[in-house]
């Protein structure tokens, strides 16, 4: 059992966690893998992590912005994230007075080689989708992330047409704008 415990020293990939799960050590300690957050998410923005995400992350919830994005349940649940509400062990717990703007799931990053906007095709889907005005266009109408405003809600990744809707960019393996977890200090 103690041998198994030492698996914790194997490095695990950092993942975008649901709101309230940003303190990774606390989250890993408390998550029981009961799947309730994933099931209840009104936007189906959660999926279970796999072996590929790290041995210890298996079965834990991660954000899946290809399936949905996180509106912090402002749309239908008065801003009470349902995942946080049902979490039985408080692995997901928002700090006092938390606002969507202060809960940072991750930061969006644009892969310029895959982005239709950066290929000067005029695509601005992500800019239009961003609820926090964290994306703007530069003088060539290319989307740019404003880091300070981005909270990693994933709306941009969700709507990005790269590899979707008939769009094909040679060499692309993912959407052109993706949300990445912030580096742990």
């Amino acid at each position, binding site marked *: *059992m103690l041998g198994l415990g030492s*698996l914790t020293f194997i490095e695990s990939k950092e993942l975008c966690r649901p709101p309230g799960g940003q303190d990774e050590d606390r989250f890993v*300690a*408390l998550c*029981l893998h009961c799947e*309730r957050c994933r099931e209840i998410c009104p936007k189906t923005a959660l999926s*279970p992590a796999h072996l590929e995400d790290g041995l210890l992350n298996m079965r834990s919830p991660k954000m899946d912005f290809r399936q949905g994005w996180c509106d912090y349940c402002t749309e239908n649940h008065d801003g009470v994230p349902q995942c946080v509400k*049902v979490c*039985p*062990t408080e692995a997901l717990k928002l700090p006092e007075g938390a606002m969507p703007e202060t809960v940072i799931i991750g930061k969006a990053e644009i892969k310029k080689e895959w982005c239709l906007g950066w290929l000067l095709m005029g695509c601005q889907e992500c800019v239009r989708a961003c609820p926090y005005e964290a994306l703007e266009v530069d003088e060539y109408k290319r989307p740019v992330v404003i880091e300070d405003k981005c909270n990693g809600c994933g709306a941009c990744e969700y709507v990005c047409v790269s590899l979707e809707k008939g769009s094909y960019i040679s060499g692309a393996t993912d959407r052109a704008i993706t949300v990445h977890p912030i580096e742990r200090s």
Partner: protein
Amino acid sequence: MKKIKAHTLRAFTIAFILLLVAIGYVTKFGLGNLSGAGIDVVSLLCPLGALSTMLAAKLVIPRAVIALVLSIILILVFGRAFCAWVCPTPLIQRWFPGRSAKAKELKIEAADMVKEAEGVESLSTAENGVKTSCATCSESLGAGKKKWKPDSRHAILGGSLLSAAVFGFPVFCLICPIGLTLATILLVMRLFAFGETTWTLLLFPAILILELVVFRKWCKKICPLGALISLCSGLNRTFRPSIDDSKCLSSSKGIACKVCNKACNEDIDIRRPESSERSLTECTKCRDCADACPVGAISFPLLPPHNDKK
């Protein structure tokens, strides 16, 4: 009409629970699985998981504590029934060979005992002495005074909790056969629903099979969850197996019938609890003994019969 055997009934119950979990996986109610199930803010947690997480995070989580108290109440009422009627592990183990042979053997033995009993009836009452001595042992049955003995499961339970506290995550959850089974079901569902492929889909069943093949006696020797439940189930008094002494071949006719003992998956000798390898604390209320008893002398009454001493 042929009575439905307890093991069939158990299989149905477990399948029904797995089905509920599977329905939960694709619906939006957030029903959860056996690690933690519930509706809205109310939830029931795996007691081992609840303890491990609190130790790992060194925090007291009010909802986890409430869930723990709920589990203890359930254990007081149903004892270790979870192990036979909810946990999918014994059902999976049944797929491995070796089980049906035992069942056949038991059936033959039970038939032999009945035959022997018929013989005894025509014989003299020379064996009366044995009879009375056996009647006395049945008195201690309800009490289950046999001292509780920690075994390898409890060591593993201690190890898991210690490991969770030291390394800061619920360690046993990684290899828990219940978790692995439910995760495999979820992954298969996601494979078909979203075409989601992952090595985990091969890894989880592999660990599961490895565990249950290498440790054939997982439930009896390894399972820390069973160990945790057995820590409280000693106080359980309801639904305990009770023997009708007037029917029992051993107490009424003095035949050395041990069918119930042999049928017991937990090696409990409910007829002779004082010499039993394991105490009634470990009874999972699986009802295999009641099924195996050649004369149907065993029942699981809600409350212990009145003539049973405290």
